[in-house]
């Protein structure tokens, strides 16, 4: 009798648990399928048709071949890589430097930490307005500063120069997104037992040796995740570049997302090409991410 009741009790418990699991799981699965799965599938489907929104005709990989062989693709891919890599690496370096400074508990460290969140909170439009103003050849403070100190002889129109448009876009992006790395790295730094540094000092380690042997290994996982996540975000970043330069001048800042936009909405709309290019970007990033995880194992954290 007691055995039966125990069994029933267990079954009842099991059912309750399963019910709870389902109640948690099903809505989110539905949501995910509707909001992510369907549009992605739909877009990938579209990429297999020529003129998918009008007289759709199955073209299989025709759109992919067209996009990959187009003149712009190489330039846009290169621009994307340059933009994503440099803005990620620079914001990592900047974020790490500032995090190390704030972690030293210097005077004004708290104020600096609070200020660091502001660029992240500002709308991209405002950030770009600010930077176009700062970099303006006629009224911009940066040109004024460079002229006063004799670095340049003529004012530079940063966002309209094929040489300087990309660096200017990168600087604006680092300014806006550098705090992402800063906050993650600061949190990680604050989690390191300060006694480790004291022990290292007593054991004879120099500041540099302590940084190399304690700080870097403890930050490794965070740095690798920042590079991956920030890199993917910057690779897909559209707004900040488009608002600053519209991909110009002469395609100097046309990255892959901007090329997708141009294919889809400029001139004669080519949704087939645009969705095919989006598919190519997705596959590229997925491949890079898989290789990255395999090579660096960023999920391995230092266990404390």
């Amino acid at each position: 009798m007691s055995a039966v009741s125990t069994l029933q009790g267990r079954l009842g418990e099991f059912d309750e648990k399963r019910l709870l699991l389902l109640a948690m799981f099903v809505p989110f699965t539905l949501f995910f399928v509707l909001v992510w799965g369907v549009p992605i599938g739909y877009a990938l489907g579209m990429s297999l048709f020529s003129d998918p929104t009008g007289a759709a005709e199955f073209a299989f990989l025709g759109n992919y071949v067209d996009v990959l062989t187009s003149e712009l693709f190489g330039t846009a891919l290169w621009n994307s890589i340059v933009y994503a890599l440099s803005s990620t690496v620079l914001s990592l370096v900047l974020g790490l430097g500032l995090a190390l400074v704030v972690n030293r508990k210097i005077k004004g460290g708290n104020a600096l930490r609070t200020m660091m969140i502001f660029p992240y909170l500002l709308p991209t439009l405002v950030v770009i307005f600010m930077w176009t103003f700062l970099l303006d050849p006629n009224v911009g403070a940066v040109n004024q500063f460079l002229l006063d100190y004799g670095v340049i002889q003529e004012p530079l129109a940063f966002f309209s120069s094929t040489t300087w448009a990309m660096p200017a876009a990168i600087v604006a992006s680092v300014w806006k997104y550098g705090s992402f790395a800063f906050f993650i790295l600061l949190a990680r730094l604050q989690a390191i037992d300060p006694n480790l540094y004291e022990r290292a000092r007593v054991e004879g380690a120099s500041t540099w040796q302590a940084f190399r042997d304690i700080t870097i290994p403890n930050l490794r996982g965070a740095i690798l995740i920042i590079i991956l996540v920030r890199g993917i975000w910057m690779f897909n970043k559209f707004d900040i570049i488009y608002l600053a330069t519209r991909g110009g001048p002469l395609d100097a800042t046309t990255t892959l997302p901007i090329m997708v936009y141009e294919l889809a909405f400029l001139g004669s709309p080519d949704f087939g090409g645009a969705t095919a290019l989006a598919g190519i970007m997705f596959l590229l990033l997925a491949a890079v991410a898989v290789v990255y995880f395999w090579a660096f194992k960023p999920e391995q954290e230092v266990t404390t």
Partner: protein
Amino acid sequence: MAQPIRLDDVRKEYHTAGASHVAVDDLSLEIPEGSFTTIVGPSGCGKTTTLRMIAGLETPTSGTIHFGDRDVTDVRPQDRNAAMVFQSIALYPHMTVRENIAYGLKVAGVPKAKRDAAVDEAAETLQIREQLEKMPAELSGGQQQRVALGSAFVQDPDVLLLDEPMSDLDAKLKAELRVEVQRLHKEMDATMVYVTHDQTEAMTMSDHVLLLEEGRLAQFAPPSDLFDRPVSQYVAEFIGTPSTNTLPATVEVGGDAPTIVGEQFEIPAPSDLFADRIGDSVTVGIRPQYLSPDGGDHHVRVIVDVVEQLGTEFVVHGTSVDGTHINVVDERVGDAGPDDELSVGFDGGDAFVFDKDGETICHGDVLVAARSASPSQ
């Protein structure tokens, strides 16, 4: 080479938002070379600050610290040839046990083969050979502590500093590691300074005990001196468990010599020390271990509150008739129950007498001498 450590008027002040706090107050002493010295005291008495100043992790506000003849007051911790074991153990979490132990040697530029040999030797001594390739997180608390000791051991320091290394361990492990630490001290040529708040650790392990009171030196002496010849009521009460019983008394004229008169006892006192204290209130200190139910020249009646058994001994927590809290440790008081009245006695030779500021006026040996000299007895 073990070095003596000399502190001269060492003072450390902390300033926070206008308020200044003196952590260590003009401390002067010399820790003999190769000795095992324990710094003990209640929380916030400045013992860890003192240790950190010896390590170089804190700079004294004033005063000097010497290792032997060398003034190290402003020398960086890297250049002091000291090793330190921290309360938090502080193993590098991302290094194996072997790398942890060898780290000090690695930054000193010792070649790998020599490092490995040193680590193997240390691991043998500390019985952690099996753990060498593991990560610190995989070890038990006791093993982690052994690794920390090992990393100090391989550096062959002149001065080995330990900051409450066992405060997080259970009693059995503590006892085990106490032996380990003392064995290590015998094998090493280093002056060892050990900080603890646990006076049992201090009394059992060390050659010298430095007891601090609010940043000041209360007494610096071998453990037996702190137990038998405390310089103040503070020392007598801090050292020893249970704490020393303190009985209020007054110095009165008794016959031809002054007498210390308590609620239930009268102790003849030497004239040279007590003649000008007539009428003063004093405190008589007597250790619970020196109170016994049958012996003694002087007697105190105690109402029993609680009896605890400690192996073969019993501890009676009680109250005397005038309300003073009194503890008795003896093998023969186990039969006592709550509210029983117990008469316990002590010899004058075991008592301490403190003045009203808590300074020791005399120890028991002086009282005994006074009594034998007194013609009325």
